[in-house]
């Protein structure tokens, strides 16, 4: 993409933000609410069709579930917050973010299935208790984890800024490269620097630093290995933070289908809802990456490297703040 096209992403994201903040999406929200209501009716119809043995009824249910998941994700929510914040704050490629969004949505469905069949069915709890558990215990835990991810982002941004302050105005010293690589993920615009540590990492096991220290390399774990590790930790924290809060719609469907003796259809439906939700989160990730790259493209050369820790710090603080607001609002 050219610089202009990249910057268009930033402009579009900001424009959407302003319109949203001013309530300009009100009519859209009204429309979404209507569609949510329609999807809810369609869901009941689809369950009845399966129970009544209608042909293609299962396919119908899955289609409705997909739409339901998409519509219920179309409003603001913690999954989009954390994926979007992470996408702005860390220079992660879109493909990986999309993968994260998809996995976390499916994991969210898996948590709902586990909650219903592992806890509700075994302990004989009812729908109200399951929802109470989801709303009062699991949701705050998930929100806290999201806040943790935000604080972690902010802390790394702060560390990056301190690193910059330590070497002001350096040109191409090794320390500068070090600092640089730390904030870029390996897929940046400098193939010579990016590929080197990458290849290197594949030649070694992704073990802890201690193992590598003993394997004869003077420089210890490579940057790519460190990034790989933090990347995995990031990924797990993100997925867990999103997944641990099961969607009420999925819980409703799972409990209903279990009681009607069509449990398999309900489980497939829950995952179809997850796929629908993932579509929205993936779109948010794409928007955030576009906006981030647009903002970086406005700056020549080293400017982007200077900006990254700021983005990381700000994105982290916004995510943490919003999560804490959500938490206090929910209490």
């Amino acid at each position, binding site marked *: 993409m050219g610089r202009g096209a990249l910057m268009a992403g930033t402009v579009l994201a900001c424009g959407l933000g302003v319109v949203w903040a001013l309530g300009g999406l009100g009519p859209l929200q009204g429309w979404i*609410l209507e569609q949510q209501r329609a999807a809810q009716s369609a869901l009941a119809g689809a369950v009845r069709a399966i129970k009544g043995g209608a042909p293609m009824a299962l396919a119908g249910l899955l289609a409705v579930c997909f739409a339901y998941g998409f519509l219920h994700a179309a409003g603001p929510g913690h999954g989009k917050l954390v994926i979007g*914040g992470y996408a702005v704050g860390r220079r992660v490629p879109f493909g990986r973010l999309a993968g994260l969004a998809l996995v976390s949505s499916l994991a969210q469905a898996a948590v709902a299935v586990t909650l219903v069949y592992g806890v509700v069915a075994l302990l004989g709890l009812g729908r109200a208790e399951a929802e109470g558990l989801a709303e009062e215990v699991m949701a705050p835990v998930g929100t806290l984890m999201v806040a943790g991810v935000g604080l972690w982002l902010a802390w790394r941004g702060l560390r990056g800024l301190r690193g910059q302050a330590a070497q002001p105005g350096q040109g191409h010293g090794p320390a500068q490269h070090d600092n640089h690589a730390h904030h870029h993920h390996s897929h940046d615009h400098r193939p010579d620097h990016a590929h080197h540590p990458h290849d290197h990492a594949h030649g070694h096991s992704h073990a802890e630093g201690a193992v590598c220290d003993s394997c004869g390399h003077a420089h210890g774990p490579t940057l790519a290995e460190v990034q790989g590790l933090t990347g995995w930790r990031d990924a797990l924290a993100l997925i867990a933070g999103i997944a641990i809060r099961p969607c009420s719609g999925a819980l409703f469907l799972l409990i209903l289908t279990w009681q009607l003796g069509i449990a398999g259809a309900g489980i497939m439906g829950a995952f179809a809802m997850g796929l629908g939700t993932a579509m929205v989160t993936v779109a*948010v990730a794409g928007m*955030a990456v576009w906006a981030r790259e647009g903002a970086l493209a406005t700056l020549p050369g080293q400017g982007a490297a200077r900006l990254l820790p700021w*983005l990381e710090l700000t994105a982290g603080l916004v995510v943490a703040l919003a999560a804490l607001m959500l938490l206090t609002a929910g209490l």
Partner: protein
Amino acid sequence: MRAVWAGVAGLAALVVPLPADAHPHIFIDAAIEVVFALDGQAEGVRLRWSYDDFFSLTLVAERGLDPDFDGVLTPEELAQLNGFDMGWLPEFQGDTYALLDSAPVALSRPMDWTVAYEGGKLISTHYRRFDAPVDLGAAALVVQAYDPGYYTAYTVVDATAKGRDDCTVEIFELDRAAADQILQDALAEFAGDEAAEADFPAVGAAYAEEARVICEG
């Protein structure tokens, strides 16, 4: 640095309306009937709540009712179901709010409830008495239907006055843009005041649909 603010604004786009996160999982079509006594004073409100198909199905299945799945409940099953939504916790305000020219009017706990199951929908009714009879005079009596937590979305589908024929009854649909503005204002205030945690703004009220009764009397 402009670019930094661009990034912040982009993020804000994702975050700003966040505490409105709760999206509804139950949809209720509400009918409101304001009941007048012989002396012309309003004495209470009868509410009819028609639950959406999915919630109705879930609730009926959960109770193990309608095992033959024909959408018809026996009188015994209905009797068993009656009052399913009337076991209100003390803090539950009933999602119905009355105002006389914007001053709140207290309503009793629910009484005289009924239930029916028609076309796959559970329909319950209940009556709530005003604490004291309300003399409308020239003022507007407003009855709002909303869930402050927005877990349930109410749509007012019908509004009537019973016992007087000189009253006009209008349904006001919510003004979503205005409601969003109220939400933003409330959040702005909330963000600057930690003590506000205790009473997070009941923004659901802004999303209320309402019936407005004005009598010539």
